[in-house]
């Protein structure tokens, strides 16, 4: 059986230009390969600037890899063909406010994807948008709202609605839960887990929080300075981490808790 998503040696370099001279080459991501099965959840963890977001962007197509290929269902994805990609892979951005167009209503933004990827008429589009809104726990009224009228949690829901509206197979979330407070974060994670169950979506997410990762992920990928240092199932990485960094990232929460505990006692 072919894997759902196969990533072959993708890498990303940036050219830092200084005037007319060809500038220094900065490596954001060294060649990296991994694969993902249907319905699996992959968590990408690492320090700031370790290339986590770069992987997310490359898979979602927001950025073009310098080298390497991404295969979906045994078919190669063209990095410039957004239309081919967006039917199967969708992205949730880190900052929900900035990823919504301030001048368009929520409904118009959501039907944008349908307009370009389906041949439905306007009524069908509206119907589907309303259905999707209710799926993520928003009201039909929100169809006519502008992004600035919504709270951060609601904006995040709109972003999730935008990601699932085309019924993709993979959703990529780039630190999508950082800006939310714990209760809403829990709500939204549960929402995503429900959707995953209903629609069989594979989910790739970048996160700092070991709690969420342990709760949600099937596989974990640990990044350090643009390199993948560990990749395995959550079980294996928690019980038998090979690297010091893995242990620190996955157990930092425990350490924090222990620390808090002692300070409150004193």
């Amino acid at each position, binding site marked *: 059986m072919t894997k759902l998503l196969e990533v072959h040696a993708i890498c990303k370099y940036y050219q830092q230009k200084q005037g007319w001279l060809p500038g220094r080459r900065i490596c954001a991501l060294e060649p990296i390969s991994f694969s993902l099965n249907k319905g699996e959840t992959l968590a990408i963890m690492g320090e700031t600037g370790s290339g986590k977001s770069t992987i997310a962007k490359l898979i979602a197509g927001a950025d073009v890899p310098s080298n390497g290929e991404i295969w979906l269902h045994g078919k190669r994805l063209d990095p410039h063909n*957004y239309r081919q990609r967006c039917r199967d892979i969708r992205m949730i951005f880190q900052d929900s406010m900035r990823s919504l167009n*301030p001048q368009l209503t929520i409904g118009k933004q959501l039907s944008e994807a349908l307009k*370009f990827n389906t041949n439905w008429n306007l009524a069908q589009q509206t119907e589907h948008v309303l259905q999707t809104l209710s799926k993520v726990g928003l009201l039909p009224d929100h169809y006519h709202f502008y992004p600035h009228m919504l709270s951060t949690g609601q904006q995040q829901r709109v972003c999730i609605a935008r990601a699932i509206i085309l019924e993709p197979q993979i959703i990529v979330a780039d630190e999508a839960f950082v800006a939310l407070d714990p209760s809403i974060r829990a709500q939204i994670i549960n929402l995503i887990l429900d959707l995953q169950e209903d629609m069989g979506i594979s989910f790739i997410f970048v996160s700092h929080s070991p709690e969420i990762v342990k709760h949600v992920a099937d596989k974990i990928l640990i990044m350090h300075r643009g390199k993948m240092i560990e990749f395995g199932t959550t079980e294996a990485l928690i019980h038998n981490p090979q690297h010091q960094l893995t242990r620190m990232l996955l157990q930092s929460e425990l350490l924090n808790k222990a620390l808090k505990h002692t300070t409150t006692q004193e």
Partner: protein
Amino acid sequence: MPNTSIYYQHREPSPLRQLWLHITANPFAMVAFYIFAGIMVLMVLSPLVSPFSSETQFSDHVLQPPAWHAEGQIRFLFGTDDLGRDLLSRVLHGSVYSLGYPLLATLLAAVIGISIGAWAGMSQGVQSSTLNHLLDVLLSIPSLLLALVIIAILGPALHNVMIAITLVLIPQFIHSVHNAFYEERNKEYVVASKLNGCTRWYLLTRVIFPNITSVVVMQITFALSTAILDIAALGFLGLGVQAPAPEWGTMLARSLDQVYLSPWTMVLPGLALFLTVLSINVLGDSVRAAIQERIRNS
């Protein structure tokens, strides 16, 4: 959404409406807006509302003072000039030359400048730079001077002035639109739309352009006031609109020798010019202030 609810409903305004609310909250901006709107209406209706044609001469009413003067007549509200032409009619007819033509030049420059600027903003590298700096040479010469050069070559006439002023205004539009596009292009919502599989044309017109309309509106108001002043200045120098036509700058120049004898022939067209330019500038300034206010609040 049809507002069918009979209950109290808190509705937040759309972003453009917010901008409008900011402007209406500023009394100076509103005064300027009403003055400008009034002048525009008078310009459009000038053939209907002006009591006489701009060239009818009343030989027995030469240099009649305005109506509020002791020797004035209500028949000639603004008085008459040295050839006995009704000044009110001339000022009204003149608005077509002094406001209508600059408006036309500005709109023409806006259409050309915005298209080139948007093209430059959507493209990358050398193509973008080339388009952006295409007409930069024109920016190095002051607009009035450039207009003088063009008129020196083509001869003094209204259409030459129009060509000169349109040419001068284009690079400013290109620059402001290009910069605005460049700023918006890499924002996340544009990337998100790109990932929706939108075409470039949709991205340009529906996604990015609504977010830079405020910049465009501001640029248009500033371009308009420049165009009005330039056409009036060229008229004053006798290089633009030619004498019998009631252009405000030309009227100022004609009345210069009789300024002690009949000050109203100079003051009234000057006042019209002053009010027009002032209202446009205040309006443009408050649009800019409102945009900044909105950016600060968001």
